[in-house]
């Protein structure tokens, strides 16, 4: 086996990434905050915090609660907004040592479209990830990503704006993610990413108050890994565009589980907080694993779960 070179590149839409190990939206800021302790050039991509048209202050505190092998957050999409993002971040991305994927969120379909239109022309952005786990204020606050028609229409409109890779980030808070995944595939999405956080809650039994200012929040971390794997496996059976997997990954072994059930790339989220070099270490670990197993390319692992008849 030995030191054979292995090919870890991955293609999403018309863009090639040198590594399939990325860092997830909301857990790596705008890509600069961890540079003291993470060599970002070794990551396949950095996905930014969700950007919205206007700056958002976010939800009332507290916003973070630890749970069994996981955490809840109710950040509420706190971000600097489109204008400051364009002015302050885009220039800094010109020499950024790896690919930047901008994650976009909105309260209305128009908001997504406006933000994408504004950002699409910038060459320093490699791709876009659309956070469909946001409440749609036009439809009574129901989440975009639970409605296949809405998801189809929005994706089609977004597709018309850019030829850059369009990744749709599905919501896991759904009876089955397959229908929406198929809808966005049909509408021209280049990939789906999953899973976002699961709706969760915690209560302070001393004060009888919710432990999050927003009452409910999103569950992430190792606790949700089994759910992420099952949803990805389900979607992998049915869709043909690449899946970018995430949910509780904190080691190379976790990442390999995701590849085996059908992920073409993975994102590291909560683990960045716990151990910032996680994604970097998984990148090295993956190469080592492939060398040891004599796997020439990622295609030799992706979806290769052995299921008996």
């Amino acid at each position, binding site marked *: 086996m030995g030191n054979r070179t292995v090919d870890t590149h991955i293609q999403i839409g018309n863009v090639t990434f040198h590594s399939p190990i990325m860092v997830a939206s909301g857990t790596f800021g705008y890509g600069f*905050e961890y540079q003291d302790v993470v060599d970002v050039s070794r990551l396949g991509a950095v996905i930014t915090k969700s950007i919205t048209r206007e700056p958002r202050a*976010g939800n009332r*505190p507290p916003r*973070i609660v630890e749970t069994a092998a996981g*955490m809840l957050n109710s*950040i509420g999409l*706190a971000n600097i907004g489109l204008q400051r993002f364009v002015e302050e971040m885009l220039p800094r991305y010109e020499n950024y040592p790896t690919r930047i994927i901008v994650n976009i969120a909105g309260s209305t379909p128009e908001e997504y479209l406006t933000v994408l239109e504004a950002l699409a022309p910038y060459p320093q952005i490699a791709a876009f990830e659309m956070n469909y786990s946001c409440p749609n204020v036009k439809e009574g606050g129901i989440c975009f990503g639970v409605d296949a028609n809405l998801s189809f229409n929005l994706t089609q409109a977004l597709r018309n704006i850019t030829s850059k890779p369009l990744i749709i980030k599905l919501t896991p808070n759904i009876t089955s993610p397959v229908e929406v995944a198929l809808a966005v595939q049909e509408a021209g999405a280049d990939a789906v990413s999953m899973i976002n956080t699961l709706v969760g809650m915690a209560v302070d039994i001393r004060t009888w108050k919710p432990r999050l200012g927003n009452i409910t929040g999103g569950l992430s971390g190792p606790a949700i890994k089994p759910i992420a794997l099952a949803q990805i496996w389900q979607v992998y059976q049915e869709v043909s565009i690449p899946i970018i997997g995430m949910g509780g990954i904190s080691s190379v072994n976790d990442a390999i589980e995701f590849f085996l059930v059908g992920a073409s790339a993975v994102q590291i989220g909560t683990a960045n*907080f716990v151990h910032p070099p996680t994604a970097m270490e998984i990148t090295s670990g993956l190469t080592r694993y492939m060398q040891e197993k004599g796997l020439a390319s990622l295609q030799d692992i992706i979806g290769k779960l052995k299921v008996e008849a």
Partner: protein
Amino acid sequence: MPYYQLTCPIIRKTHLTSGTVSLWFRGPQIAHAARPGQFVMLRVRNEVHPLLRRAFSISRCNPEEEAFEIMVQAAGTGSRIILEHEEGEMLDVLGPLGSSFQEVEGIQTALLVGGGIGIAPLFFLAQTLEVDYHILFGGRSHSQLFALPEFEPQMRFCTEDGSLGQKGLVTDLLQKTLQEVSGKAAVFACGPNQMLAAVAGVAEKTGIPCQVSMEAPMACGVGVCMGCPVPDVKGGYRYVCKDGPVFPAEMIHFKQLVNG
């Protein structure tokens, strides 16, 4: 300001109270770079639960030894696991993080006001101060309080139950002390939100500058998760881990903070 992720050995462990320990770590880059008010994020252990790092203020530095100290109070799961570590064991430390106490020009006396384990960063501040200072240390009862020999002459105590020092809240002790000091003074406070709100109130009323070191539940500690907001008087939020933990008291919307 750069920060580091280091695996640091515990080089000294002492018990400060029955539920509080002092842990000295060797960690050259952190010991050299740290400024009073900054904190570190410790990984509790290399397992999936408890998951998140815990924040601890740097309570003293010793550059010759390339060492820094934290003071850990047994509160919940994470702090208990950390304080059971012994000399020689290693912990994963991220730091130094956050803002530091700022020098206030032209003051004669610094009043360092600590509530409970909030006392920790004030010792580091005292180490570096070039003006006279008093450390006012308040707690519920004497079992929560302790003194460090090098600062003892400057320390004054108060307890809610009167078991040590003046009986009452640390704001009472602050007001009393303010009457004694002559010349310009400034307040540097760390402790529970309620206490900081009260201290900031006293400072505002008496017109003296006040800096507060705040707490909030944290996930990242480095400004990426947006998990640690405190309300800004101007609207919106400041983030404890990157804009703080030390803020000018007048920047914080204490009313909103304390009510929810």
